[in-house]
C-alpha cells in the first residue's frame, strides 16, 4: 500500500484560476521525491494539498490508506502535527523566540507529555547540529541556521513525511547544500521526503523527480539513488 495516493487531484481557486488540472501519482513510504516545475505550474498548490493545508476541489487523496475527505478539521490538525513536518522557503520561525522554544512549538499541540519536551527538542536540535545555538533568537542566526531550526521543528514530533517547499530558495549555495544534506540524512533514516524546487541541482538529491507543468504531471522519472552516498552529516 502506498503512503500517498492521489487521483485526478484538481484545484480551482475562487478567482477561477485552475492551479491543478487532474494530478495522479503514488508515493511509497521512505521515498525521496522532488516535485519540479516553473513558477505558476501548480507545484506549491500540490504540496499544500498533500500537506493538508488546503483542500482540493476534485479528485481523491488517500493517506496511509484513508481518504482525507473524511477527516474533521481537528483530525487534520492532528495529522499535520503527528504525521507531517513542514519546511518553508521563508523559514517561518517565531521572532523574539529562541531556537529551543521555536523547535518545541509543535509539541504544544501534540499529545507528547510535557516532561519529555526538553529531551525531544534537544535531540531535534542536535540532529541539525545547532546545539550551540539553543538560546539564540532567529534574528541572531544566519539563513542556513534558520532553516536548520525549521527542520528541527519539522522533525520533533517524529513525523512520517517531511514536506519541504523550496527549502534552499532563500539560501546561498553552500547553506543550501547543507540543508539538502540534512534532508538526505532524514531520508536515509527512513523519513519520506517531498521536496519542491525549481532548481535542478537541488532536485538531484531525490530518487524520483515529478515534473509539473500547467497543473498536470508532465513527467515522473525515477533517477536512482546516486546521491545517496555517505548518509552522514558533518557540520
Amino acid at each position: 500500500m502506498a503512503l500517498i495516493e492521489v487521483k485526478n487531484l484538481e484545484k480551482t481557486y475562487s478567482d477561477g484560476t485552475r492551479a491543478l488540472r487532474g494530478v495522479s501519482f503514488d508515493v511509497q513510504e521512505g521515498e525521496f521525491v522532488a516535485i519540479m516545475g516553473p513558477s505558476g505550474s501548480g507545484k506549491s498548490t500540490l504540496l499544500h494539498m498533500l500537506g493538508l493545508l488546503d483542500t482540493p476541489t476534485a479528485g481523491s487523496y488517500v493517506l496511509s490508506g484513508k481518504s482525507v475527505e473524511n477527516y474533521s478539521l481537528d483530525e487534520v490538525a492532528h495529522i499535520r502535527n503527528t504525521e507531517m513536518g513542514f519546511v518553508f522557503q521563508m523559514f517561518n520561525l517565531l521572532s523574539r523566540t529562541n531556537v529551543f522554544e521555536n523547535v518545541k512549538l509543535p509539541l504544544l499541540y501534540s499529545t507528547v507529555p510535557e516532561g519529555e519536551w526538553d529531551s525531544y527538542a534537544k535531540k531535534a536540535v542536535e540532529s541539525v547540529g545547532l546545539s550551540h545555538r539553543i538560546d539564540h533568537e532567529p534574528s541572531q542566526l544566519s539563513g542556513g541556521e534558520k532553516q536548520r531550526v525549521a527542520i528541527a521543528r519539522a522533525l520533533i514530533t517524529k513525523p512520517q513525511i517531511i514536506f519541504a517547499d523550496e527549502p534552499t530558495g532563500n539560501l546561498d549555495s553552500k547553506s543550501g547544500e547543507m540543508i539538502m544534506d540534512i534532508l538526505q540524512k532524514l531520508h536515509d533514516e527512513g523519513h519520506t521526503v517531498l521536496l519542491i524546487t525549481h532548481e535542478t541541482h537541488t532536485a538531484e538529491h531525490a530518487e524520483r523527480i515529478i515534473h509539473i507543468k500547467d497543473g498536470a504531471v508532465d513527467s515522473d522519472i525515477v533517477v536512482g539513488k546516486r546521491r545517496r552516498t555517505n548518509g552522514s552529516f558533518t557540520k
Partner: protein
Amino acid sequence: MTTKHTFKTALVGLKTNKSRSALTILGIVIGITSIVLMMSIGQGAERLILDQVGALGGETIVIRPGQEPKGPSDIGNTLFADSLKIKDLEFLLKKQNVPELVRVMPAVIVPGSVSYRGETFRPTIFGSGNPEFWSENFNMFTEKGTIFDDQDIRDKKSVAVIGSKVKEELFGESDAVGEFIKIKGRKFRVVGVYKDQGQTSFFNINELVIIPYTTAQTYLLGIDYFHEIITEASSADVVARTVLDIETTMREAHGITDPDKDDFFVVTQQGVVEQIGTIIGALTVFLSSVVAIALVVAGVGVMNIMLVSVTERTKEIGLRKAVGATNGDILRQFLVEAMILTAVGGLIGIILGTTFSYVTAWALTNYANLEWTFAFPFFAAVLSLVVSTLVGLVFGLYPARKASQKSPIEALRYE
C-alpha cells in the same frame, strides 16, 4: 493544547508586544480606576452623611412647613411657607394629642452676620426654643457662661450663646461673656461660649450662634411663624406612631381634612437616612452607567488592537496551524490574550482606584476636617475584575474567531 500552555503562549504573545499591550489596556485601566474611585468615594460619602445624621438621634422628628418637596421645583414651597405658628406648639404639647412627645422646639434661621468692634463673622444663626435641646442632642456644653432659659425666651431677651469659632473670630483671646455683639444692627449680650466641638455634624457647631427664637422672630425677621419645629419622641420605637399622632394633631390645628392638602410635612431621621441612601444610590448608578459606556469604548479599543494584532500575526497563525494547532487552539490563544490584557488592565485600575480613593480620604480628613473613613472597596474590586475580564471575553471573541478561521496557506503566504 493544555490550558496551562494556552496561558503561557498568550503571555509570550503579549510580552513580545509590550508597548502595544500597554496601550491596549489604557482605556480599561482608566475605566476601572474611575469605577473603583467612584464607588469608594460614594461609600465614604454615604457613611459620613449617615454618621452625622445618626448623631441627631433616632427619636428626633422634624415638622417643616409647606408640602414635602418631590423635586427641585418644590423647594420654594418649603422655604417660603409660613404655616407653622405658635398655636401648633400648644396643640402638640397637649398630652392627649401626642402622648409620646417629650420635647417640642421651634426654630428659625436668621441669615446674616455678627460683628463685634469692627470684626465681622458669618455664622449660622439659630433662633431656638428650649435651649437644653442642644446639650442633649449634640453634647454641646458651654465652656464659659451659661445658656439662656425659658424665661429669656418669653421675655424676648437679646442674649446669645456662641460657638468657639465665632468667639475666636470676634474676640480672639479676650473674654466674650458679658460683651455685646451685633446681629442685624441689634445688640445681643453674649451669655455663653460653647466648647470646641470639632466638625461633628452637617453644620459646624463651632460656627453657631444661638438666640431665643422669640427675639429672632420679633426683632430680626419680623415674622410670626417657624422655619421648623423639632420634636422628640420618648424612644425610637414609638417614632412611627408619634409621627401619625403629630400629623393628626397638626391637621386638627390647621383645620385640614384632606391629607393631600397638608401645609406641613414630617421628617424623621429614618426617612432622611433612606432618602440619602436613595440619592447616593441613584448617583452611583448614574455615574456607573457613564463608566459602563467608557468601558464599552475601551472594549472596542481592545477589539481594534486585537484585530490589528491578528492581521500582523497572520504568518504566526498559519505556522501554528501547519504544525498542528486546531482552530480551537488559535481561538483560545487570542481569547485568552484579550482576557489577560483586560484583566491586567482591571487589576491596575483597582490598584490605581484604591490608591486615589485612599489619597482622597486622607486629604478630606486632613484638609477638610471631615471624619472620612477609607475602606477598601471590596465589592467594586471584585466587580471590576469580573467586568474587565468579561470585556476581554466579549470584545476578544470576534478577533479570536477571525484568527482561528484563517486558512493556513493564506496565513503562510501573507507578507
